[in-house]
């Protein structure tokens, strides 16, 4: 999560896109990214209930090709998250230091299971 939260901030800055990364873990926060609420709802629906209501809402907001792209991105990170966790992929101390504020703001430490990496 840390890597792609960082890429979210970086790409938003590079493309002059507003973003509030707190929305990643706080459902009351508007992500500000165009179509952001619909995208988050689509992820949640895909990984929990599987209902297609969120898909239709995303389709209405960003169009059918965006729904397919969102679906494939979810699939990709279902894959990469498993690879990272199953191989014990470490987050370097430099990255932790650079992202200390982000880690604290989003409470990402609670996901850190790599304490026995080494």
């Amino acid at each position, binding site marked *: 999560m*840390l890597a792609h939260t960082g890429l979210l901030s970086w790409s938003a800055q590079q493309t002059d896109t507003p973003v509030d990364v707190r929305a990643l873990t706080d459902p009351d926060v508007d992500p500000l990214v165009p179509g952001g609420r619909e995208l988050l709802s689509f992820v949640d629906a895909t990984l929990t209930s599987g209902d297609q209501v969120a*898909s239709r809402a995303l389709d209405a907001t960003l169009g059918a090709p965006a729904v397919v*792209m969102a679906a494939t*991105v979810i699939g990709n990170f279902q894959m990469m998250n498993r690879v990272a966790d*199953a*191989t014990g*992929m470490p987050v370097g101390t430099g990255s932790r230091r650079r992202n200390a504020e982000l880690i604290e703001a989003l409470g990402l430490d609670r996901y850190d299971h790599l304490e026995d990496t080494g």
Partner: protein
Amino acid sequence: MSLDRPELAVRTGLGRAMEDSWQSLGSPGTRWTGSERIRIVAEARAARLATSPGQEDDVMARAAWKVAASPASIRRHWVDALARDGLDPGRYVELVGIVSRAVAIDTVLEALGLEIEPLPQPVAGDPSEDVDQRAGKVKAWVPMVGGASITQALSMVPAENAKLEALHGALYLSFEEMADPKPGKELTRPQMELVAARTSAYNECFY
């Protein structure tokens, strides 16, 4: 059925890339036969659908279940225990790739409200045993070539690492495209990263 479906045709080559990746799961791998690889996919599916309890006495099934259904609960001592029970690092790395790719493809279809694909037919033949001998101890739980990095995570088993990279490029971005803030896809890069980060939050994946 094939993954080369009209619903996926919005992006050139997407359905074909998914189909190639899916069918390869039934081919002989590096340390597993085609039939064994399909059994791994079946165990991963069963784990995600929780259709029956995991088979604790079968080390391959035990590994497939955990990687598929609760990856955030994996710890180094568990990986080490698998090795002691006969799942050596090469077999484990290949299994991680198989399960992860199968989960990815199933998830895409589920997200789009499409039927999941039948298991591929097994292809006869022996495993290649083509493990990269340069893979060594790194600051991670499995041997890798050239240091611990996500792009090298499966590098001990080059064939599986290549399949992972190909699917990553088809579903999201190639490793090269990741440096581009405007890659010209159906979502903007911030939209893609919002989806990526939320998925990782759901999976409780710190990395």
